[in-house]
């Protein structure tokens, strides 16, 4: 295991792009210390910003401290594990294709954006665009799982095509905006306009739901087995809120402007 502790971080953003456990596995610790990182508009050897110790060969990294000005943590990671005891900056786990990112703290915007595989767990809250598409992209997350223990901002899972995003806390507006497939679960309060422009995919709102857009039509009351199984899986992962759910949901179809093949399940009646 390789351990990182911040040395001299301030508010100037540092990019960790390309510096992942799998990409650095063949390097020695002293080689990793010499890897150049961008801080603002200049490049510095990693060792000037972080103290590192340990052995990178098992592809497990432990980061300790406040990394909220460090962006692109685990971005593009293919395998291995990156654990952070502290908060992360923007674009953590962006375009990940495998491995595991655990953040015991909060994450910034674009957490797991355009992710293709692997798993991200955040104990705190995430910013806007979690699991979403980057600006200018057609599709967002294409695989993998994101579990956010706290709340998430706007546009969670926007443009999602495959994968599973779970938000245990509250969720901002535009959740699942222009979704094409995949699953989004929200246990807390969900902000306005969930599923706007969605073509396919599944959104399950297990907490208080907002008034739906008029382009979502009530279909029926049902207890879908797959939701049941997914809740059981979340309970097994330690999501307490997933236990005690009846799984009995009101299905709405939408967005009717985009063909209406998306599913929006509500566990509680619309306020």
């Amino acid at each position, binding site marked *: 295991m390789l351990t990182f502790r911040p040395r001299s971080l301030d508010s100037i953003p540092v990019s960790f792009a390309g510096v992942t456990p799998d990409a650095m596995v063949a390097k020695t610790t002293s080689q990793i210390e010499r890897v150049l990182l961008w801080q603002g508009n200049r490049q510095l050897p990693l060792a000037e910003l972080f103290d590192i110790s340990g052995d990178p060969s098992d592809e497990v990294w432990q980061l300790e401290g406040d990394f909220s000005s460090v962006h692109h943590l685990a971005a593009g990671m293919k395998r291995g594990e990156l654990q952070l005891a502290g908060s992360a900056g923007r674009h953590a786990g962006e375009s990940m294709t495998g491995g595991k990112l655990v953040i015991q703290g909060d994450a910034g915007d674009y957490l797991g954006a355009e992710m293709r595989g692997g798993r991200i767990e955040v104990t705190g809250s995430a910013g806007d665009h979690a699991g979403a598409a*980057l*600006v*200018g*992209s*057609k599709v967002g997350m294409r695989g993998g799982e994101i579990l956010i223990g706290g709340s998430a901002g706007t546009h969670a899972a926007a443009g999602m095509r495959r994968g599973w995003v779970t938000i245990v806390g509250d969720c901002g507006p535009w959740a699942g905006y222009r979704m094409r497939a995949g699953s989004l679960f929200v246990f807390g309060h969900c902000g306005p306009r969930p599923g706007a422009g969605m073509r396919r995919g599944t959104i399950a709102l297990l907490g208080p739901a907002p008034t739906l857009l008029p382009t979502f039509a009530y279909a029926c009351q049902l207890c879908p087995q797959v939701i049941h199984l997914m809740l059981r899986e979340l309970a097994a992962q330690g999501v307490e809120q997933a236990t005690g759910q009846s799984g009995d949901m009101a299905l709405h179809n939408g967005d009717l402007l985009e063909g209406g093949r998306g599913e929006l399940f509500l566990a509680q009646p619309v306020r």
Partner: protein
Amino acid sequence: MPQLIKIAGGTVYDPANGIDGEVRDIWFRGGTIVEPPGDQSAKPDRTIDGSGLVVMPGGVDMHCHIAGPKVNVARKLRCDERRSPEAVLARGRGTRSGSLGSVPSTFATAYKYAGLGYTAAFDAAVPPLGARQAHQELADTPSIDKGFYVLVGNNHYLMEQIAKGEPQQVEAYLAWLLTSTKAYAPKLVNPGGVETWKQRGAGHSTGLDDQVPHFRITPRQIIGGITRAANALGLPHPAHIHCNQLGMPGNWRTTLETMQAVEGQRAHLTHIQFHSYGGGDGEEATLDSQVAPLADYINSHPNLSVDVGQVMFGNTTSMTGDGPLGYYLRNIYGDRWYSADTECEAGCGVMPIEYKNKNLVHALQWAIGLEWYLQVDNPWQVVMSTDHPNGGSFLAYPEIIRLLMDRTYRRDIIATCPAGLRQRTELADMDREYTLGEIAIITRAGPARLLGLASKGHLGPGADADITVYTPSDNQAEMFELPRLVFKGGELLVEQGEIRTAVVGQTLHVAPHYDTDRLVDLPDWFNERYSIHFENFAIAET
């Protein structure tokens, strides 16, 4: 006195002066080519050894999109192309930073053109109201000489005057518009069709004899009226026409009718590849090539010329003054889309587009473009273009040159395309290969002549010292990708890909004479309809 410079012993291709691969010296002083001194003992201040190298005039791109509102919209729309570090052009000694992608930033566009050996480029579609922005962007496009064509094919005042049968009024207004916007030529985009779509919000396909609602006029009358006026004004490049029904299966008949509608006058039909499709009823599956009958017409009508609008496989951005075309493409590709209605003047559509060699329609578009180069007999009537960035980036020109000069390579690429291609185009059976002299015509001498640029596109005495020197190679794409030396106005711009200096290029425009008395009512007409005041419209001389 400025330095006298000689490029000694290069193999010169200067088709405008009948020089096709002769070993010669080129002399220039102070930005202009001069006669070699009669006195054999005369010494230049500087001699550049050109032996073993190919010398041509600087390239001239007569149809691209590099400035104005639609280009800037595209830059914002394609933020996705600017994320990777490779898309960033770092600041150099004497050069500014920029970003690349299919729609590079202004300075980056200039450096890339210069790096390719091009010394002049013309933006092909600026609405009159966008002229000010276009000039500001062109002022930030150094290294090359440039200009733009102003959109006139759906202009309310022109349509009213043509419908009234007032040809002299049309002439005066056209001259005023070119002068006020400081444009180089008039451009018709889907004449009448954009206006029809703007009024009705549906219907992409306006034929030459369909009535434009409210104006009681047909596209045929608009084409005839404006082409007549432009020729009567003696403009250097009278009419630059983007035909109706771009991209529609079966549109070749409309294109042929457009060629006939100019009634023997000088006219240029642009990105002709997009207008040469057989098939019918909006059925993409029936698409085939109808280059042969159209090229026959061009071959027998020296008043006409075309540029190709070659499609290249890859990801690019479509941008057009043809609003209904934007809507049509949006419905096919479903990607993000920008549309605009420019008051009494024009439309606009911008969206990302990807051409794939495994897609039969895209492969056919690629093949139809190449057919055009190979089927027009006289290279002076056909000009290289990708309609940058619509069919692909101008950076693809070296690749197109290789496709034209090397039929084995051409057939290798055809082999990667869907098998259905063979039934719909004869490209695989075409043996013609371009010579270097012919390439020099379709990339510089031809477009310069069609634009009436007397001092460009050739290396005779009096011409601008815009000179590109290439290192010959069996792989023509490599040869044209990386010129050995590029001079603009006698200044060394680029040396083997390294930018040496970025001189300020000129923005070229016309100022034809016209009868100002004819337009006394124009200010009132204008002020009733436009969102800006007439007094604020014209661009002042600087």
